[in-house]
């Protein structure tokens, strides 16, 4: 299913190399709010048995669509878009999970956005399935997905303006 220009990859290492080309090296990912050791480089191979995914890539918010196109060209499918509210680090994190229908590769793309102005470009042009995931993340966290066709609440009532999963949410 890969389109003409990018070669069909046979292992995750080739995929990791493509991501290294995409992401300039000096953007070191900030440590997540937990006491977990900060990842050494933006593209990191993880031990599947311990973490549940093979490749962990930290990208800038505007490179999200580029990463999605690379994965789409290699036949990956979108698993989930997860929002996380690191209130201690005053940042919000958006995690994109990808799985591959043919073999057992699991790739995770992460981005961090400031909590005050959480904006991430939408990938619903590449993956139509992301349309609903992004609407849900928007209504629960308030992360605005730029260019999303219809960013109205999906699970909450239509006129809901509160974001329940934020850490500072009061019912």
């Amino acid at each position, binding site marked *: 299913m890969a389109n003409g220009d990018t070669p069909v990859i046979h292992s995750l290492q080739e995929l990791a190399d493509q991501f290294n080309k995409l992401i300039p090296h000096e953007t070191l990912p900030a440590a997540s709010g937990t006491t977990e050791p900060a990842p050494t480089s933006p593209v990191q191979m993880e031990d599947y048995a311990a973490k549940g995914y093979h490749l962990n890539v930290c990208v800038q918010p505007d490179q999200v669509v580029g990463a999605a196109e690379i994965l789409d060209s290699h036949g990956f499918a979108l698993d989930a878009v997860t929002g996380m509210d690191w209130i201690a680090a005053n940042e919000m994190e958006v995690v994109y999970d990808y799985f591959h229908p043919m073999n057992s590769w699991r790739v995770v793309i992460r981005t961090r956005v400031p909590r005050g102005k959480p904006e991430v470009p939408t990938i619903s042009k590449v993956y139509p399935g992301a349309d609903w995931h992004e609407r849900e993340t928007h209504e629960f966290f308030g992360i605005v997905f730029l260019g999303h066709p219809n960013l109205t609440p999906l699970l*909450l*009532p239509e006129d809901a303006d*509160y974001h*329940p999963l934020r850490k500072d*949410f*009061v*019912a």
Partner: protein
Amino acid sequence: MEPEKVCSQDLSQIIKFAKLDELLDLSRANSLWPLTFGLACCAIEMMAAGASRFDISRFGAEVFRPSPRHADVMIVAGTINKKMAPAVKTLYDQMLEPKWVIAMGNCAISGGPYVFPGQYAVIEGVDKLFPVDVFIPGCPPRPEALIEGILKLEEKLTGKRRWPTVTPQ
């Protein structure tokens, strides 16, 4: 309808006097048509009650009518969400007079497992929307409990209990 429905004892051996509304209550009790209104896990137990093993068609209650106009009893089986509340209220209003409501499962009685400080989406109990006749606790209640609920509703209507209640030893 006075709560005590006892006709005069001495005549009942010879002729059975049935006041009209007593007769109506008897017929209404024996043909309760539930509204297919399954919300969540309790709906599967309601379907199991309608199935062959716990058959509620013995009481003439297996005619699950989809349209609120035809139904007599609304079995609220599942969690009432704030987004769903206006729809439930409209359904209740569309149902026609002599109608009854059975709140099946903890979610319908009091919000069940989804009540915690800072909850923003669940209506804590159907009786906040409209009056409820029979509460069936359980999460989800067993099909026998639903049948017991229907018997309890019939007892409320006719004043007489169909089967002897089993008192736990």
